[in-house]
């Protein structure tokens, strides 16, 4: 039976996956130094704290502002039901059970099955409800039933074998509601939520006359392109409201730095010669600049 190209391709893909799958990859997640946005700057220390606590990477989610206050969820007693799976009684053809049908035969322990209808324990132990925090990134910790899973929205917390859990969340300014759910293997769920307030630390009030400019960064997305005409997407950070100009021998453009300090610009190099690297210069209004090489490599 002749093979077709799909069989051959899948075989080659399997070989390639095995080669990569068994490799000892040495790369680590990019370091904090590579992050250029303010959000990122506060993320890493918390991640380190979380790593120290649990020894593994943690999930990070953003908790958005919420206006309605959260009330404490009351503790509701729970019950466990023991449901018999077979009826205890006379067994047909068993001489010993050929007794009057009114005879009482005590149920055997093995004829019952425990059905877990108990919602898992869910406690938030840190931070305290109503806490005012000066750090934007906060490790939430608590306790749940061993084996249960804890979520903050769709993000799952790390839960250790004893039921201790934690997850790192990023707060917005003001009041933030963190809502957690715990679910056990039987599908029972518990909910807990707390409100914490992010209160940025007081800024220093020195009377500086020269305004400190926001950090200027610039990055190229591709560095090369096989499309015709070729293009690249440049991005970075800068002083909010200022302009960034991108120039090269074969094309350029300008980008306005947004309110959050980020900018992005797609630049098409209409007349770029093939396979000839050239320089692209990015400059902000204060003269800070960065250069990148770009090459058009037609398909």
């Amino acid at each position: 039976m002749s093979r077709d190209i799909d069989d051959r391709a899948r075989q080659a893909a399997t070989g390639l996956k095995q080669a990569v799958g068994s490799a000892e990859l040495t790369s680590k997640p990019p370091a904090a130094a590579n992050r250029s946005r303010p959000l990122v700057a506060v993320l890493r220390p918390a991640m380190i704290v979380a790593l120290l606590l649990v020894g593994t990477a943690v999930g990070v989610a953003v908790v958005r502002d919420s206006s309605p206050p959260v009330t404490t969820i009351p503790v509701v007693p729970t019950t466990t039901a023991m449901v018999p799976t077979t009826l205890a009684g006379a067994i047909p053809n068993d001489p010993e059970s050929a007794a009057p049908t009114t005879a009482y035969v005590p149920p055997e322990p093995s004829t019952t099955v425990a059905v877990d209808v108990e919602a898992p324990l869910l406690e938030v132990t840190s931070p305290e409800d109503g806490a005012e925090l000066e750090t934007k990134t906060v490790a939430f910790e608590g306790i749940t039933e061993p084996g249960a899973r804890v979520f903050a929205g769709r993000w799952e917390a790390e839960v250790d074998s004893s039921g201790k859990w934690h997850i790192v969340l990023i707060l917005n300014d003001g009041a933030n509601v963190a809502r957690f759910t715990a679910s056990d293997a039987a599908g029972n769920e518990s909910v807990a939520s707390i409100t914490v307030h992010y209160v940025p630390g007081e800024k220093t009030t020195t009377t500086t006359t020269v305004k400190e400019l926001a950090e200027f960064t610039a990055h190229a997305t591709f560095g090369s392109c096989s499309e015709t005409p070729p293009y690249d997407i440049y991005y970075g950070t800068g002083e909010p409201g200022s302009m960034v100009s991108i120039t090269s021998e074969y094309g350029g453009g300008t980008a306005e730095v947004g309110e959050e300090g980020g900018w992005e610009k797609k630049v098409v190099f209409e007349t770029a010669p093939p396979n000839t690297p050239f320089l692209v210069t990015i400059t902000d209004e204060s003269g800070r600049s960065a250069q990148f090489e770009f090459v058009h490599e037609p398909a």
Partner: protein
Amino acid sequence: MVTAGTKPEPVPRDEELTVAYESFENFYQREFRDVVGLAYALSGSRFGAEDLAQEAFIKAHERWDRISGYDKPGAWVRRVVANLAVSRFRRRSAEKKALSRLAGERQQGISDLEPEDEEFWQMVRDLPKRQAQATALFYVEDRSVADIAEILECSSSTAKVHLFRARQALATKLGLEVGHES
């Protein structure tokens, strides 16, 4: 401290209150190895593949606050690595960086492919770049035509044409029949 223990009931999941973006670390851990595989298929460089993937992830990391809001951040990072990996210029640079980094180290990186597989992927790399990218995404990553179209930023019909032509060209070179996939 807040304690809760309630009977099972639908849990309200108010997206306005919680959530939102996957952590970069989770994303990296889940996707990195697959992206290295894609880089390896398209670059043929077992030294440079990891660096190409790392470069794409660094770019994602630098603007994760924006990319994490995309429906498929994985598509974005694959688009970057697919472009980097087919570029001779970028490939050389990544390979040079990787070799200098590995010099003096005794790490076991990606192993050599079987000669037959190496020959196959070399044929893929000899295809026009878009066809090579579509082929690697289809077979290495098991991506659908719709996914490939999204990653390569083209229409589904264009992605399908790239894939069809690639399979036809490979089948001709290898003396095989064109299958029925895609």
